[in-house]
């Protein structure tokens, strides 16, 4: 999603820092091994491995791109090509709660933009930024497949349906 990528492809943040080695903790390594058994080749395990990496570190850093590439015998460029294609892989760190507001048509006519604008104002952030306390990131996302209970806000993995500015406010208080 716009806002979650570094502004320029040539910034220093795009390149892996060789002094920062990353490695899956034993529990995640075990899950990685079981992922490999589900696919006929290593490359096909790329998407689930990236999901696992994001679960472990919260975002896909250039170091993670290199590490995943080594695990699956893929070049960092191939891995990065996939990371940047899909929305859900965060290419920058996000807050503890990633507030993803769907603003597609069905949510829009049910006033999703009010929620989105309210969140940006209230938390004083631009889309994609992390609040100074590290708690929240707000992004606008495309249809989440929950149009019947619009508007919907996805917070990390969970859907919050039939939302409104007031409900969002109560929820924010709870999360803080």
């Amino acid at each position: 999603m716009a806002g979650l990528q570094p502004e320029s492809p040539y910034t220093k943040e795009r390149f892996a820092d060789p002094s920062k080695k990353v490695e899956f903790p034993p529990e995640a390594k075990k899950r990685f091994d079981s992922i490999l058994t589900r696919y006929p080749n290593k490359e096909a395990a790329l998407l689930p491995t990236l999901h696992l990496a994001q679960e472990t570190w919260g975002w896909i850093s250039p170091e993670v791109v290199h590490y995943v590439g080594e695990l699956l015998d893929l070049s960092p460029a191939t891995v990065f090509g996939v990371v940047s294609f899909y929305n859900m892989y965060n290419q920058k760190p996000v807050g503890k709660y990633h507030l993803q507001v769907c603003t597609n048509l069905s949510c829009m006519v049910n006033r999703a933009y009010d929620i989105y604008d309210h969140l940006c104002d209230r938390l004083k952030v631009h889309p994609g930024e992390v609040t100074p306390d590290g708690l929240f990131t707000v992004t606008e996302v495309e249809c989440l497949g929950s149009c019947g209970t619009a508007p919907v806000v996805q917070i990390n993995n969970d859907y919050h349906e039939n939302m409104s500015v007031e409900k969002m406010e109560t929820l924010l208080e709870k999360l803080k």
Partner: protein
Amino acid sequence: MQPIRILTANIDKPNSTSIDVYLEGGGYEMARKALTTMKPEEITQVVKDSELRGRGGAGFPTGMKWSFVPKNAPRPTYLLCNADESEPGTFKDRVIIEKDPHLLIESMIIAAYAIGSCPMSYIYIRGEFHYGAMVLEKALAEARERGFLGRNLFGSGFDFDITVARGAGAYICGEETGLIESVEGHRGQPRVKPPFPAVVGVFGGPTVVQNVETLACVPFIIRHGAEWFKSFGSPKNTGPKLYCVSGSVRKPGVYEFPMGVNLKELIYEHCGGITGDRKLKAVIPGGASAPMLTADEIDLPLNFDAVMKAGSMLGSAGIIVIDESVCIVEAVWRLAKFFAHESCGQCTPCREGTHWIESVLDRIERGEGRPQDADLLLDMADNIGGKSLCALGDAAIGPVVSSVRKFRDEFLHHVTHRSCLPGTVRYRRLRAGAVAH
């Protein structure tokens, strides 16, 4: 027409995702019947006879798709379940996945046996459906434990297992070949056809990709027969169908009817009419890609052929209702923004054109439009439609072309008065934008 409960029969039962509840309702009996008493060709034939058509959007006859799979291909045959459900306005598969996962598993067993699938198959579920993926994982574990998945199912010698493959947020992965690419671990960019997936698909083997709802129909066809299935709907448009209604209606949600419920009746009787008793302005009958229908055009049965005849498409039956308070330009702009965001970037007309359409709509909506912009939009649409590998390009222009043709006055009002029509609301807050001048 009265609502029916066939595909949705289990969803209101308490604890509907557990295998015990599913077994009580006769679960996995049809898989047993199919694997122990029927030949694969017989299953394909009965599905053909039932005239079941794909529920994902294209409406391709399912039985015919299965019969394209070559026997004795050099590489293993795969069954993929398309649970990507990213079309704006569509949320039907999610109901089956989250409320009745065992129905999907049983359906996949039967379908896999019919096409001669290898023991490995995948449910490709969109990444955002984290809860749905967890429900499926749990259901799969239960099914493995009871011996409904694994080796030698029902003593028939057929081995089969399912893996949940999560997407990561890309609309294009709902396209058949985009999905295949994504399962293989690549960017989800659609392939050139032919070869069609039925011949060369995932991992180089023949592949059948089916939508969740399509698969869910299969056990009922096995149980009750093709004639029973055809008793719903009209010829060539048969079976029970899930309709998703959203937008400005009082009671949005998933409704099950025999194929061909009247659209007007669905909105005004079953969904309680328009929010705030406002007037209807337009309806999108089949997800964001379907051309819009005006309020005068909605007296039609919702089946593949009738909606096609009316100049739109049933698609995934994601019905988005737009009332008179919605600015049509903003509505179309939002859909154009979606397609511009989701274009995979492979074909130039779609990659560039969708962004141009978005920015022209944006400037019209901001009151910075030019008199020729309506025609400019049609011209740009003309240069996208039919000029890309997959259907995304054609989908992107569906709402644009139809709305410019049907609501031209409202577009012109924006240009001449530099504002939206009186009585319409603007939902987004205008920020300083990158408008093409």
